[in-house]
């Protein structure tokens, strides 16, 4: 089955979406990511959409869902690299991506995650994370 790869970088998970996603692929990514967060104890998720030429309401909803699910699993999410034309279209479509943290570049996204994890740190002392 076709899947979008999830890379692990230390405390963070990195997803780069490089294909024109059909709905099932988006749903699979959502499931895979939540599973991976729980498995690895990742504190942050970065989704790079710089190669995406279109975000419609389905993909937008997937990004909102991933952010919410990750938050419940104690991880921060940042969506990076949205193309300007995509942003313009999303707003006109009526999708404001509430609750989804964004950053312009991968670098800025990493900085956001590092900060968010440091300031939100200390909550992970309940023994859920053995390392």
């Amino acid at each position, binding site marked *: 089955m076709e899947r979008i790869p999830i890379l692990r970088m230390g405390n963070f998970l990195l997803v780069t979406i490089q294909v024109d996603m059909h*709905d*099932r692929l988006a749903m699979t990514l959502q499931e895979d990511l939540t599973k991976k967060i729980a498995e690895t104890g990742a504190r942050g998720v970065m989704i790079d959409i710089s190669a995406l030429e*279109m975000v*419609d*309401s389905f993909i937008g909803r997937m990004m909102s869902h991933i952010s919410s699910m990750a938050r419940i699993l104690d991880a921060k999410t940042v969506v990076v690299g949205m193309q300007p*034309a*995509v942003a*313009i279209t999303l707003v*006109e479509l009526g999708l404001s991506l509430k609750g989804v943290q964004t950053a312009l570049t991968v670098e800025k996204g990493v900085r956001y995650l590092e900060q968010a994890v440091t300031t939100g740190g200390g909550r992970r002392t309940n023994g859920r994370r053995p390392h």
Partner: protein
Amino acid sequence: MVVARTELLPIRGEPEVVMVRQIVRAWCVDLKFSLVDQTKMVTAASELARNTLIHGGGGTVDLQVVEEGDRRGLRLVFEDKGPGIPDIPLAMKDGYTTGSGMGLGLGGSKRLVHDFEISSEPGQGTRVSIIRWK
């Protein structure tokens, strides 16, 4: 209005929704739409193709290059033989949904194009026609 070029595509599954997006993109490029205009039209096509698939149980989209006076545009006509929409004004409202979506499909795609027409008969199906002019 003159139809200069036309192509009928089936929408029977998710891969075909993706294919519609890609072919609409190619036609927009041929028409020399700006990147923002391409993105708007492709996004509207994606929303409506998904509606055709999910709510209409599949159907077709007719792509047409249309000319009127000295302007050219792309018209997309989505048709299905599904259950139809009993209350169109309600279905057009943002946030209204019967499926699993966000309820932005119809109202949202209307905002992304210049002309938007919808007709539906309960039990007969739904037809949505959109145009974006260059």
